[in-house]
């Protein structure tokens, strides 16, 4: 069977500078796979290339056997791929409810959408308290919750999360990961890009370590967590 997401020899270049030098990785159905690495290792470039925000310089991306290399980002949602962007990207001048509805933009089953909005509110009660509040007035953690909830409303088969813990207080990071775990439990395949290697590996099935645009280590998340090289580089010894 084809993996949900299969990336082969992906390259990304800005001008003449190669940010991603031909990486291979895959995510199987139902898996939570994490791509970890330091700042500037190329994590976000990889995700941008996968989600159509920039054109890859080379390589091939397939989703359930279908070639989606360089596909425009608005076409991804229809295929069942949702991206929760870096820096959250909530619509600050739309209220929480409208933000969630925008996640379901490509769908037309209004009654089902509203049921799922209610499910999100049950899963993340904080959002329910703030339904009519402008998203720009939420705290960073609440915005991240909203961004994840919004992505879920696209009914993704594959959810890609870009640095969900970025800039958040530790307590809030715990809550965000709790939500991610709940989503994974429901069977959604997840590709998690994270700087917080410890947390990411604790929650993931498998992991890839990205360094200067190349994948240097890969394997089972538990194994990586115990790997002395990962420990030395990312987990503070």
């Amino acid at each position: 069977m084809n993996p949900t997401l299969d990336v082969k020899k992906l390259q990304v270049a800005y001008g003449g500078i190669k940010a991603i030098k031909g990486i291979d990785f895959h995510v199987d159905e139902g898996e939570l796979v994490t791509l970890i690495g330091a700042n500037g290792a190329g994590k976000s470039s990889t995700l941008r290339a996968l989600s159509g925000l920039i054109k890859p310089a080379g390589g091939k991306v397939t989703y359930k056997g279908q070639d989606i290399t360089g596909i425009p980002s608005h076409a991804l949602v229809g295929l069942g791929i949702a991206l929760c962007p870096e820096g959250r990207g909530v619509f600050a001048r739309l209220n929480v409810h409208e933000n969630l509805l925008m996640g379901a933009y490509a769908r037309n089953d209004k009654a089902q959408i509203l049921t799922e909005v209610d499910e999100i509110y049950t899963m993340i009660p904080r959002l329910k308290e703030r339904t009519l509040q402008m998203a720009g007035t939420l705290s960073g953690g609440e915005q991240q919750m909203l961004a994840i909830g919004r992505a879920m409303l696209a009914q993704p088969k594959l959810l890609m999360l870009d640095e969900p813990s970025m800039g958040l207080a530790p307590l809030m990071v715990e809550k965000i990961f709790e939500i991610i775990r709940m989503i994974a439990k429901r069977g959604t395949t997840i590709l998690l890009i994270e700087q917080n290697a410890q947390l990411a590996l604790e929650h993931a099935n498998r992991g890839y370590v990205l360094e200067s645009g190349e994948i240097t280590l890969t394997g089972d998340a538990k194994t990586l967590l115990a790997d002395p090289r990962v420990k030395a580089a990312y987990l503070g010894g």
Partner: protein
Amino acid sequence: MDVLLQQIVNGLVVGSVYALVALGYTMVYGILQLINFAHGEIVMIGGLTSLFAAKGLLAMGAPPLLALLVAILAAMIACAVIGVLIERIAYRPLRNAPRLAPLITAIGVSILLQQLAILVFGRNYFSFPELISKAPIVFGHITVTLNEIVILLTSFGLMAALLWLVHNTKVGTAMRATAENQKVAGLMGIDINKIIAITFAIGSGLGAIAGVMVASNYGQAHYYMGFMLGLKAFTAAVMGGIGNLWGAMVGGLILGLVENVGLIFVRGDYKDIFAFVVLVLVLIFRPQGLIGERVAERA
């Protein structure tokens, strides 16, 4: 006092038209950060198209009201198509260019549309048929015409409809989302090119109706009528806070009032000065416009 009241009424009528045109500027600015200087010419094309459509229909023996409705529809369709074409041909290729490039292009499009109007309609001043009665109606000390009442009510109706559309429909919410962050809007599955085209179509449609209003109110239309009107509506949009729908409406009404109340004190020839004095004052003292941003970009 009577004069003041009369000028307030006149100001509201003119101001409501400014507001409709200002909405076209502000919608496009809100979504593309582009000042579409060709928008005044869209209004002109609306005025001329409706004029010729109405004359033609009257000549065929159509009743005035039917002629008016069909003329408005023809103007709206013509302007919406031209607005969408301008975006597609002139602005979209420059979407990632430095901001000066589309601005200069917009001025070029404006001149192009004027010249096209000369080719199609000619250089003359054409008189607009009286489709709605312009006989004076006296309310106490104020005189209005049925035509003016219709202009005022239609403008307010259209503004309310636009606000409803933008705030209560899926496409309106997508317009606001696209205005705020095109990349993320794309990730939601919103086809931003489609949303931008819809924005141009709606703004141009409103401009077309404004063109019909101006042509019918002054009883004439000509290829140059969009220039000054466009500048004033742009002033109104800046005054209210460009990119903000409420700002454009409030700005338009205030500008109409200032101009007409100002006429009490100076001769009519100097009327246009008011608009630009207001623009300069706003730019000096409140560059973000009367209605500023309500929500911070980030928490």
